[in-house]
């Protein structure tokens, strides 16, 4: 109902086009200036002395047409890794965040473990975690430890991203005012039920935009799993590059990742705008 609700309802890009002024005229102006800028950049690249060879090496139409299907198929594995990891991250990170927020001296060791966990997995580069788990865990030769590199790749991503996402959750939980907990406890709800029905639902709603932001990062890091074996889009394009002596498959992979992340990014923008307009509408509080 308020003006702030408008960018939430329509496309965020349109709102960006309109700038702060709004109106038909500014749409044309921003469109024109965008075209001019794009034209200048393209002209600069195309007229550069090395362009013909770059074009041949990175934007080869024939190589693209021959390879995009295979890369797209391999990209299915990236999406699979992403979806599986995401589910576990959402649950595991919430658990870590809740453990870290347990009050009282009794839970000190648990809080401590949660802190060590987040410090550790935010500190170590993702690529190292993937290597260490992917090569180290199967090497233990324990019959009950899975040997699949895909399993360990996903596990590594879950461990690393959970550390980040736990911090996002924690910020959300701490942003819920203490009076909400008081209200719930005063009704006789236990500490756990207060978390479950009152604190966590509010916290999660507030952190959806930063959560999605982390997941955009995750979509790209699925490519790192290739380093321990599984053939996903990046690995497939490497294979294709080696076979064709041409870099176009890399560009193809890049386009696929962009096609996946842009909708996520727009969804994040939309959620943020909607949240803002809701806060405006709820100005009475």
């Amino acid at each position, binding site marked *: 109902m308020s003006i702030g609700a408008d960018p939430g309802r329509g496309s965020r890009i349109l709102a960006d086009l309109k700038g702060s002024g709004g109106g038909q005229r500014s749409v044309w102006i921003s469109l024109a200036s965008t075209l001019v800028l794009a034209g200048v950049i393209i002209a600069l690249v195309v007229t550069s002395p090395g362009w013909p060879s770059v074009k041949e090496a990175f934007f080869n139409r024939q190589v693209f047409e021959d390879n995009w299907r295979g890369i797209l198929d391999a990209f299915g594995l990236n999406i699979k890794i992403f979806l599986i990891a995401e589910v576990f991250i959402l649950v595991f990170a919430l658990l870590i965040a809740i453990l870290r927020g347990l009050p009282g001296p009794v839970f000190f060791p648990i809080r401590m473990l949660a802190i060590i966990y987040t410090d550790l997995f935010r500190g170590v580069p993702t690529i190292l975690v993937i290597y260490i788990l992917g090569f180290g865990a199967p090497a233990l030769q324990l019959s009950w430890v899975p040997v699949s590199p895909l399993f360990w790749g996903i596990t590594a991503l879950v461990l690393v991203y959970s550390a980040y996402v736990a911090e996002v959750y924690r910020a959300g939980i701490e942003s819920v005012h203490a*009076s*909400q907990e008081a*209200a719930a*406890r*005063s*009704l*006789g*709800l236990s500490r756990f039920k207060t978390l479950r029905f009152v604190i966590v639902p*509010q916290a999660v709603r507030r952190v959806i935009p930063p959560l999605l932001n982390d997941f955009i990062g995750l979509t790209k890091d699925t490519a790192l799993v290739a380093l321990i074996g599984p053939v996903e889009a990046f690995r497939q394009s490497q294979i294709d590059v080696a076979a064709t002596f041409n870099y176009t498959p890399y560009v193809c992979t890049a386009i696929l990742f962009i096609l996946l992340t842009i909708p996520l990014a727009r969804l994040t923008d939309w959620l943020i705008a909607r949240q803002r307009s809701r806060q405006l*509408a709820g100005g009475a509080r």
Partner: protein
Amino acid sequence: MSENGRALRLETIWKSFGETPVLKGVDLDVGEHEVFCLIGASGSGKSTLLRCVNLLEKIDSGRILLRGDEITRPDIDVNRVRRGIGIVFQAYNLFPHMSVLQNVTLAPRQVLGKPKAEAEAEAIVLLERFGLADRRDEYPDRLSGGQQQRVAIVRALAMHPDLMLLDEVTSALDPELVAEVLNVIRELAEGGMTMLIATHEMSFARDIANQVCFLDEGRILEQGPPEQIFVEPKEERTRQFLERIVEAGRL
């Protein structure tokens, strides 16, 4: 009727926040079906007193007895005690992510284990009684302050408490919305609800209270029926406080 007909008894309650003493040996007796008003300046300890009764704050020493049962024992089940005590806060503290009906039915369902249909039917009866039935599917942010506070009262009533604690429930409201909330409290009083009320609404307190108690810097300075406290206070501090209130046009 319990021990001496007392619904609530406070025995020399001491409470400090860090180095700052907030309650300095408060004694208080609330009878069954009695409306007990706490008055006093901001910071005199009214809110803290109510929060101690609801065990939201831990007292440093003293005893609190609810119908003769000591609720400040270390081994007490706080969740069970709180079921019997409803508290309404100045800032409503409704759950913003839940509809009115969900706010009201949460505790009956999750604490008392009532089936959804039964909890909702009961909630709707209560909401109807306070003129909120048509708001049951709204979210708190879409209600006026007065409506929100009435929902908060209904939410507390849904647990069928023996005692209601009201913590300056009209202080956050626009003047024209105060009456609708006070009318609800008046109705509860007429229905025999035992209430301990911290308030700045002096004329309301004079009107509704059986007992008024003037709290000053963590001590009970004066206590008695409203006619006595408001008409001929014994203590100089009480008189000064009431004079300031009159000047502010609140009495």
